[in-house]
C-alpha cells in the first residue's frame, strides 16, 4: 500500500500556538477528513504539508518524498484549495485559468472550462462579481484541472449549497477509485465526513487526538450517558470529553469493553456516537489522554 501522505512527529511552534508531535498516514486510494475546532491547527497542518510554512522538526513525506527537498515536484502533484480563495478581483475567471495553466505541465484547458460549466462558474465574469460559494467552486475547478494525484483542501465545502456539496463529495469518491490518488480535506461539516471520508483525523489544540478509519471510529468509540453518582476519580479515567451537568454526564470512550467491565451493575447507557457528538465533547469536555 503506497502512502500518499506520511507525517511523523511534526512540530511547529508559534508564539501563541504549537502543533505538537503530529503523526498521521494517508494511503493512496483513500479520503481523509480533518476535523477540529477553529484554531486547532488544521490550516497550519495543511500549510506545512505544502511547505508554505517551515516546520521546527519532524518529517512530512508526500508519495514517499520529503516535502521540502522535493517541494516543486510534490506541488505539481497537489491540487490545493484554500479556505478563502484569494484571486485578483478584477481578473476574469478564464484569465485566472490562464495564469494557473502556465504553472502546471499537466494543465488541461478543456477540463478547466468543462468544470467551470459543470460547476456553473461563468468564465467571462470578473472574480469580484462572484459569490463566496462560486469563488470556492472556481478554486475547486482550478485544483481539479491538472490531474492532481493528491487533493489537499482547506474547508472546500464551506459556503457551498447542499446539492453541490453532495455532488462534490461524489466526485472525490470517483477520483480515488483508481487507488493512485488521495484526498485530504478539513471541514466543520461532519455530515460530509460521514458521507465520504475513509479516515478521520481529529485535531485539538495542536495535537492529534485520533487518526483512524471511520469504521474503526464508529466500532470502537461509544457515547456513554449516566448519572453523576457513577463518576469518581477512577471511572473518570475511562472517559474522553467528559461533560457533566446537574442531570448526569455525557462522555466518550474508545474502549467499550473496559467501560462495561468497570461500570457493570451501574445505571448508564452506551450509544453509537455521531461525529457531531465526538467533535462537541472532545472540544468542550474534559479530555483525558
Amino acid at each position, binding site marked *: 500500500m503506497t502512502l500518499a501522505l506520511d507525517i511523523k512527529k511534526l512540530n511547529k511552534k508559534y508564539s501563541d500556538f504549537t502543533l505538537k508531535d503530529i503523526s498521521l498516514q494517508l494511503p493512496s486510494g483513500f479520503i481523509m477528513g480533518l476535523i477540529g475546532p477553529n484554531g486547532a491547527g488544521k490550516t497550519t497542518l495543511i500549510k506545512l504539508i505544502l511547505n508554505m510554512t517551515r516546520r521546527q522538526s519532524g518529517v512530512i513525506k508526500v508519495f514517499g518524498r520529503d516535502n521540502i527537498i522535493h517541494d516543486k515536484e510534490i506541488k505539481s502533484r497537489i491540487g490545493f484549495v484554500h479556505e478563502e480563495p484569494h484571486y485578483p478581483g478584477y481578473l476574469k475567471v478564464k484569465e485566472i485559468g490562464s495564469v494557473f495553466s502556465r*504553472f502546471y505541465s499537466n494543465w488541461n484547458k478543456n477540463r478547466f472550462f468543462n468544470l467551470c460549466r459543470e460547476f456553473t462558474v461563468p468564465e467571462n465574469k470578473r472574480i469580484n462579481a462572484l459569490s463566496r460559494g462560486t469563488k470556492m467552486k472556481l478554486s475547486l475547478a482550478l485544483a481539479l484541472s491538472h490531474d492532481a494525484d493528491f487533493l489537499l483542501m482547506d474547508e472546500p465545502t464551506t459556503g457551498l449549497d447542499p446539492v453541490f456539496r453532495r455532488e462534490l463529495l461524489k466526485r472525490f469518491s470517483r477520483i480515488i477509485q483508481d487507488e493512485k490518488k488521495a484526498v485530504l480535506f478539513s471541514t466543520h461539516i461532519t455530515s460530509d465526513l460521514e458521507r465520504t471520508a475513509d479516515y478521520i483525523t481529529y485535531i485539538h489544540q495542536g495535537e492529534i487526538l485520533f487518526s483512524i478509519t471511520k469504521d474503526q471510529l464508529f466500532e470502537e468509540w461509544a457515547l456513554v450517558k449516566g448519572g453523576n453518582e457513577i463518576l469518581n476519580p477512577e471511572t473518570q479515567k475511562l472517559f474522553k470529553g467528559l461533560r457533566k451537568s446537574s442531570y448526569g454526564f455525557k462522555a466518550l470512550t474508545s474502549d467499550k469493553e473496559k467501560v462495561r467491565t468497570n461500570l457493570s451493575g451501574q445505571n448508564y447507557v452506551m450509544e453509537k456516537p455521531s461525529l457531531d457528538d465526538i467533535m462537541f465533547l472532545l472540544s468542550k469536555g474534559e479530555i483525558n489522554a
Partner: protein
Amino acid sequence: MLKLCWKDFYITRFFWIPVPFFFVILLSTFIFSELLFLTAAVILTFIMTLSIPLIEEYYRTEEIIASFPISHPSVVIARYLTSFFIIIIGMILFMISSLFYSSIFKENQIDLKSVVSFEGGMLFLGFSLLFTLLFFPLYFRLGTGKALFSFPAFLIAVSAVIWLINKILVLITGKSFLLIKNVQANIIKSPIHYFSEWILNINKGISLALFILILAVVFTGLTLVSISLSIKSYKFKEK
C-alpha cells in the same frame, strides 16, 4: 521564472496603461532642475516597482503563488527580474520625457537633453537599482507595509555608511567622491557634470572602461547579496 514575470505583468496589465501618461505628466513639475528631474524619475520608477508587491499584498495572492510548483529562489529572482524590467521601462520614459520637455520648452531655456546621455542613464540606473536592491531584502523579510516604513531608516543608515567611507577616503586620498556640498550650492547645475568630472579626474590612470567594470562588479555583488538575503528570508517567511 519567466512565467512568474509574465504573471506579474499579466495580472497588472491594466495598471500599466495609464502609467506612462502619469509618469510623463508628473515629471513636468520638475523640468526646471536636472537634479530634481532625475530624482523624481528615480522615485516614480521605484513606486512603479512597488506596484506589483502592493497589488499582491492587497489581493493576498502570495498564498496562491506559494502553492504553485515553483522553487522559492525562482519566486524571489522573478520579482527582481520584473523590477529590472520596470526600471528599464522607467528609464525609457525618463529619456523620452526629457527629450519631449526640452523640445516643447525650448524657448523657456529648459534643456534636459544632458540627461539623455551615458552619464544620465548611469545615474538613473544606478540609483534605481540601488533602491530596489536595498528594498527587496526588507520586503521579503517584513512584507510590503513594514518594509516601506523601515526603508527610510535603512536608507539613512546606508547613507551614513557611505558618508563614513567618504570621510576615510578623504583622509587617505584627499579627494571626496561625494559632491553634496557643490550640488547644494548650485542645485540647477546638473550632478551629471560632477559625475563626468569625477570619472575623468578620479585617477588619470583609470580608464572609463575600467570604471564601468568596477561599477558592474559592485552592482553584481550587491545584486547577489540582495538576492541571497531575499531568498533566505522568503524561505522562512509564513505564507
